[in-house]
């Protein structure tokens, strides 16, 4: 029997081994490659369950690189937080691997796809287990790379190639801040090891300030697609649907939230306020955008953005919580540790969201395959009878995300709303309105896809998917139902579950009533309002509102386009011009010109006339003589 840290190491290295073997030997053997990759994912899921059940928590670390006084170490920090996240990554990852077997069955580049999934699993598990921020950063870049690779799977399609580049570049913007944050943290505290930072934090010896947490939040904002770096996530839907489910819904985009929870000891009040507002605004903005999407995956992408906004807001809401708990007297705002309630609520929603959003994406993938790659919800319809399993599981997903009582989303969303109600009424109002929108756009999709007549030819010939695709759907549906039950989540999350805020007494009733009203208002509104026709009802009846939302959605892309094309490009042209004139022109060509001229002059001396040489010799002899005799 191996020891526990070796299990963790195995979980990290298995996907890497799978990716390596596929990349080196199995590039043309799609079936074997898929088998190896799914096998590795299954083992990872198994190990993550064993580690969770075994109950041992540990930290271990080895030195990797030493440069003078500066050392970089590699190590694992396996606490309850990492255990929960590893289970989410391993479990959901495995189910998505199985789904991919069916979804990617006829793909030409199946081996590359599965190698990409494996390298992603490796990178993601690295982030989950890392015990210091440098190691997190290394794996952070690796998930960025694997995300790029997988979005770009259909690389012959221009839009997919553009989307992958966009995702990579936008993430780089965030990662630059992240790296600065890590360096600043090292400079200020002398360590980036999470355990040591916690110890310093407990002893009140941490150098606190708003800069470090905000810079670290830049990285989280890039990965978790928060404002203003949210533009890449909707475009990333160009990748295959399992990738959208795994990377762009369940795990990688949640890494930002996970990172925030990992570095919570560095947080200060001001930073948490910023984080809270960024999350809140992202949640609202993305929900508004989702209402006008026609592409089923884009709706889910904006929904993901919105839910990530919820999690970020939940984390930020930890701040005010403490100041209330202190009670009376001036509160020293600079030295408030964030309340763990924010962590509890954020991680709770992260977990349930991973379940139901992976479910929704995979069900959408099943719909897309069934409809022969039709993604426009207005060309679908009537799939209820043709795809019964997909219909049922998608329905559970919709009910879970909209917060129907006793499903997973109900508990986690209520925890966040309760936290907001206690802390900040404005945020509470915005998040509640966002919840109305969430119900609205989810039931809109649900009605348009599964009800009414089949509006497209593809939808008319739709068929249910095979078992490799429906089995993961059923399992994820079960998790989406049960994942939020206190008994289940308490098992999964250990001590993290104790951090989840729970409403009691009248507050409990208020939250319950609010969420039910939200559900009825949004869901009922969508079911009554939308007609199952080929045109968007909102566009027909209220073109002004529709146009406004479309412009709102496009505004960020237009702003960035304007910035890149008109400001950055021109600045680059100016620099290029200066470079051409001064650097390339004066310094490089100028120096070469001077040397060339000297050479040209020296060449003229070398005339080939012996008499000329003799005269030069005479001159030389005279000069030498003059020098030797002191006349010169």
């Amino acid at each position, binding site marked *: 029997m191996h020891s526990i840290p070796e299990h963790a190491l195995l979980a990290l290295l298995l996907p890497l081994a799978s990716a390596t073997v596929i990349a080196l030997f199995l590039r043309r053997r799609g079936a074997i490659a898929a088998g190896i990759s799914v096998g590795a994912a299954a083992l990872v899921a198994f190990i993550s369950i064993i580690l969770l059940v075994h109950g041992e928590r540990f930290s271990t670390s080895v030195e990797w690189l030493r440069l003078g006084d500066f050392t970089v170490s590699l190590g694992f920090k396996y606490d309850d937080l990492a255990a929960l996240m590893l289970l989410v990554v391993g479990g959901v990852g495995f189910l998505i691997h199985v789904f991919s077997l069916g979804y990617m069955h006829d793909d030409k580049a199946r081996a590359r796809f599965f190698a990409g999934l494996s390298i992603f699993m490796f990178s993601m598990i690295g982030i989950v287990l890392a015990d210091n921020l440098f190691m997190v950063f290394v794996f952070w870049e690796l998930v960025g790379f694997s995300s790029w690779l997988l979005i770009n799977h259909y690389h012959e399609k221009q839009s997919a190639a553009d989307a992958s580049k966009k995702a990579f570049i936008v993430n780089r913007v965030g990662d630059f801040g992240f790296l600065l944050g890590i360096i600043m943290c090292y400079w200020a505290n002398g360590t980036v090891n999470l355990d040591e930072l916690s110890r310093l934090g407990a002893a009140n010896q941490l150098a606190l300030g708003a800069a470090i947490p905000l810079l670290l939040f830049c990285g989280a904002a890039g990965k978790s697609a928060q404002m203003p770096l949210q533009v890449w996530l909707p475009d990333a839907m160009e990748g295959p649907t399992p990738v959208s489910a795994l990377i762009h819904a369940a795990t990688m985009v949640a890494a930002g939230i996970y990172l925030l929870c990992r570095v919570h000891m560095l947080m200060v009040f001001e930073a948490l306020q910023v984080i809270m507002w960024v999350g809140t605004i992202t949640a609202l903005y993305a929900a508004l955008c989702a209402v006008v999407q026609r592409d089923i995956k884009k709706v889910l992408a904006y929904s993901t953005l919105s839910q990530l906004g919820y999690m970020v807001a939940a984390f930020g809401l930890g701040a005010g919580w403490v100041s209330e708990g202190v009670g009376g007297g001036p509160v020293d705002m600079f030295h408030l540790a964030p309340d763990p309630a924010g962590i509890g609520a954020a991680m709770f929603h992260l977990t349930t969201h991973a379940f139901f959003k992976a479910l929704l994406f995979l069900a959408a993938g099943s719909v897309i395959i069934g409809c022969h790659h039709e993604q426009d919800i207005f060309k679908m319809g009537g799939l209820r009878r043709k795809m019964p399993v997909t219909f049922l599981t998608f329905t559970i997903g919709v009910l879970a995300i909209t917060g129907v009582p006793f499903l997973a989303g109900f508990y986690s969303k209520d925890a966040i709303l309760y936290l907001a109600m206690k802390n900040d009424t404005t945020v509470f109002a915005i998040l509640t309105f966002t919840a109305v929108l969430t119900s609205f756009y989810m039931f809109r999709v649900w009605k348009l896809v599964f009800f009414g007549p089949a509006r497209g030819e593809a939808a008319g010939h739709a068929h249910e998917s095979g078992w490799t695709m429906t089995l993961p759907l059923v399992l994820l549906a079960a998790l989406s139902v049960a994942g939020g039950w206190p008994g289940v989540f308490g098992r999964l999350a250990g001590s993290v579950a104790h951090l989840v805020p729970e409403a009691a007494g009248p507050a409990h009733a208020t939250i319950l009533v609010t969420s039910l009203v939200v559900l009825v208002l949004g869901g009922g509104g969508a079911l009554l309002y939308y007609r199952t026709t080929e045109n968007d009802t909102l566009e027909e009846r209220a073109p002004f509102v529709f146009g406004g939302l479309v412009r709102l959605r496009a505004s960020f892309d237009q702003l960035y386009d304007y910035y890149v094309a008109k400001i950055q490009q021109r600045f680059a042209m100016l620099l290029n011009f200066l470079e051409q004139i001064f650097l390339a022109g004066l310094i490089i060509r100028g120096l070469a010109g001077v040397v060339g001229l000297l050479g040209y002059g020296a*060449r003229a001396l*070398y*005339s*080939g*006339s*012996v*008499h000329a040489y*003799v005269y030069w010799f*005479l001159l030389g002899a005279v000069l030498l003589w003059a020098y030797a005799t002191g006349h010169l």
Partner: protein
Amino acid sequence: MTIGLDHYLLLSAVLFALGFLGVLLRKNTLVIYMCLELMLIASTVALVAFSHFNGTFDGNVFVFFILTIAAAEVAVGLAIIVALFRQRHTVQVEELNQLKH
């Protein structure tokens, strides 16, 4: 009139100047070559005169060396000129101007 050191040195200087002007002004490689030899001879005249008037053998020893080297030099130099003539059918310096740029 007694012939003193000055006269020898004057003779030597005149010979040297003749040789040098010849090198500078003549066009025929053979003539230039003979002028070079003339300059060597001018220097040996001066050395022999010094040796005689100083009463030492240093100058004479020098002269032997110079003559030996001049003989070797003539052998090599004339061989080059003969080879050059075979190749180019001329020994005029203004036509021997290939060694440039």
